[in-house]
């Protein structure tokens, strides 16, 4: 009797809600908000960007479809070629240094000492301060006339002539690389530290008992176990550094004579400064294949490491 009552017509949920009992429908319903957000704020602007790069749009002029002409134009643009080289150099050098210093810092912070929590909080400061703000402080430190770095070196008797930090093309690039490393190391350090803490101390003890020296313990125990975390951090960092804008815009505006232009700053100068919206979009998009290849290679590698 009771069984018939439960399965009776009156106790049945309405058909629409019953759909959600099916896992496929439920999954779709749960995914929908994310899909809408991603579509609205990632896919749609990306699609619009692609369209824009295929047209001859200028500010206030819709332009017409011109195919790949914008890409052809930037391919023959000497400033664009400088920009590509700059971006790779900037990303490559900073990533290596950020990884090395970040790892070093993480290993130091993983030890027990007094005031550990406080130091860990302080380490994060460069990452927390808004980039534009901290970059302005650096701008003063590298100022052609009032550089505190020059002043110190001069007082210490190390230099007799001012160092032209932001005026010399190579030094300007070095300067922005230094700032990027300074800003990025905390991110590496804290994330790698989290990774280090998941490694069981027993493994180290076992290795020590087997006679492994500290360097061997690092190379054969810590490094392989830290690898998945490291790769993810490097992936994030590469994407962010490749598309960096604020730091260069504030420090040099891409100068002197385009020596520090990156994809984003050059796209901005052309698109917003000169009003050539489509060419600006083409330069932004030119970043995409490079980043895509880097990301795919890294993700494949991460999968290999994880399934090993």
């Amino acid at each position, binding site marked *: 009797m009771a069984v018939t009552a439960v399965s009776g017509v009156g106790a049945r949920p309405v058909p629409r809600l019953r759909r959600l009992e099916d896992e496929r429908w439920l999954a779709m319903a749960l995914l929908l908000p994310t899909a809408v957000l991603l579509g609205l704020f990632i896919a749609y602007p990306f699609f619009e960007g692609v369209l824009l790069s295929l047209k001859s749009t200028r500010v206030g002029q819709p332009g017409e479809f011109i195919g790949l002409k914008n890409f052809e*134009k930037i391919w023959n643009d*000497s400033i664009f070629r400088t920009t590509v080289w700059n971006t790779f150099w900037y990303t490559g050098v900073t990533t290596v240094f950020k990884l090395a210093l970040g790892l070093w810092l993480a290993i130091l912070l993983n030890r027990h000492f007094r005031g550990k929590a406080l130091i860990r909080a302080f380490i994060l400061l460069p990452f927390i301060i808004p980039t534009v703000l901290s970059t302005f402080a650096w701008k003063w430190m590298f*100022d*052609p006339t009032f550089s505190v770095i020059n002043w110190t070196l001069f007082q210490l008797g190390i230099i007799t002539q*001012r160092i032209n930090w932001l005026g010399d093309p190579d030094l300007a690039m070095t300067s922005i690389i230094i700032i990027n490393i300074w800003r990025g190391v905390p991110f590496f350090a804290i994330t790698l530290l989290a990774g280090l803490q998941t490694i069981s101390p027993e493994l180290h003890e076992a290795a020590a008992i087997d006679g492994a020296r500290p360097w061997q313990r690092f190379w054969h125990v810590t490094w392989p176990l830290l690898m998945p975390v490291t790769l993810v951090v490097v992936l994030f960092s590469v994407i962010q550094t490749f598309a960096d804008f604020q730091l260069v815009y504030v420090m040099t505006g891409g100068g*002197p004579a385009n020596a520090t232009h990156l994809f984003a700053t050059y796209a901005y*100068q052309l698109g917003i400064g000169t009003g050539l919206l489509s060419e600006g979009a083409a330069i932004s998009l030119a970043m995409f294949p490079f980043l895509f290849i880097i990301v795919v290679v890294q993700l494949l590698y991460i999968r290999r490491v994880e399934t090993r």
Partner: protein
Amino acid sequence: MAKTKRRSVLKLAGGTAAVSLGGLAGILATGRTPAYAQQRTVHWLKWVDFVPATDQMFRRELMPEAEKALGVKMNLETVNGNDLQPRITAGIQSGAGPDLIMSFNSYTHLYANSVVDVGAIAEEVGKREGGIYKYAQAICSDGKGVYMGMPWAVIGGMIAYRKSWLAEVGANKFPETWEEYRDVGKKLKAKGRPFGQTLGHTFGDAPGFTYPYLWSWGGKEVEADGKTVVLNTKGTVDSVKFMQGLWKDAMDEGGLAWDDTNNNRAFLSQTISATLNGASIYIESLRRPEQYKTADGKPLNTDILHAPLPKGPGGQYGFHLLQSNMLMKYSKNQDAAKEFLKWLHQEANYRKFFESQKGFATPCTVKWESDKLWDVDPVMTPYKVAAKLGQAPGFAGPPNAKAQEGLSKYIITDMYAKAVQGMPAEDAVKWAEGELKKIYGA
């Protein structure tokens, strides 16, 4: 405690709903929005003035007066000069933003499709004030009576220099030719007091120096047809070669990274002896005489004079920042904005701006050249002809959108910057010509 009955709550809620519905219905019936939304507003976006007293005056005096006189609500917004273009672009592309936006140089041509013709106002003001200077006409109009921007003022660029320091090396007046300029600079640099000049990516002082310098050697970007690129000539190559020596011998080599404010700081902290600038260095030294003093304790402002850029084999030129106000096509308050522009350019109102600038800004009409303000301070007198003598980028062609593109890409400035960094003069010129051909050939 009084009991609240369910019925009374319902009554109250119903009443409120009825009132609000009635109100909405009433508004809909009249077809008009409530009074508070009817007030017209004009949103004016301009640069942060290098003379702070002017922006204070606008906020405290002129804007309230305009509101009273015109019955509009004024919304004045100021941003750094380098940030005007992003705001213009954002406004045009989204179809919403400030009604009036300050334009630098030939932005007027770059955004010509997105602004409203203000020719009637310009013509009226020009007629009343003895005519608009050709320089301002060329930059603000299409030459056929359409004005894409209402000429506002010229920020004259002159060399501010230290009278006593130049005298110490035997120069009792400012050098008149580039050769003399280099000789004097060489002696000054040897004493640790070089000339200072930016060759960086910045809107004012960099092109303000490099364009007139190029012209003074007989170099130019294009022919008068505005199409044929003729940068690669002997004159241009000579100018680049001379700059390479000049930079080493006489200039502060940090200038490659300067923006428009670095030379002000360097001059005021007395590390350079001369620099091309608006009058802001001098005006700042007047404002704080006790802070800026010479080595023998005199106010620094008594040791500053102004001079035009020296002559070259091709003549003597100046390129001064020309400001105008563009009325945007997307604006829903075009009539109110036009009324405001007219009101702003009435003599009594414009004078308040002019006088607050103390000569930093030179008006674009002839009448003001003979104003008594120019006699008040002889140090400022050279600026009074800035608007008359200026020449625009794109010379010998018109100062159109292509000229502005070359300017925005810093091609001429970068040509010199590359050369002083070690690129052979011929290669630097060839590079710049190639870039210009891409612009003018498109």
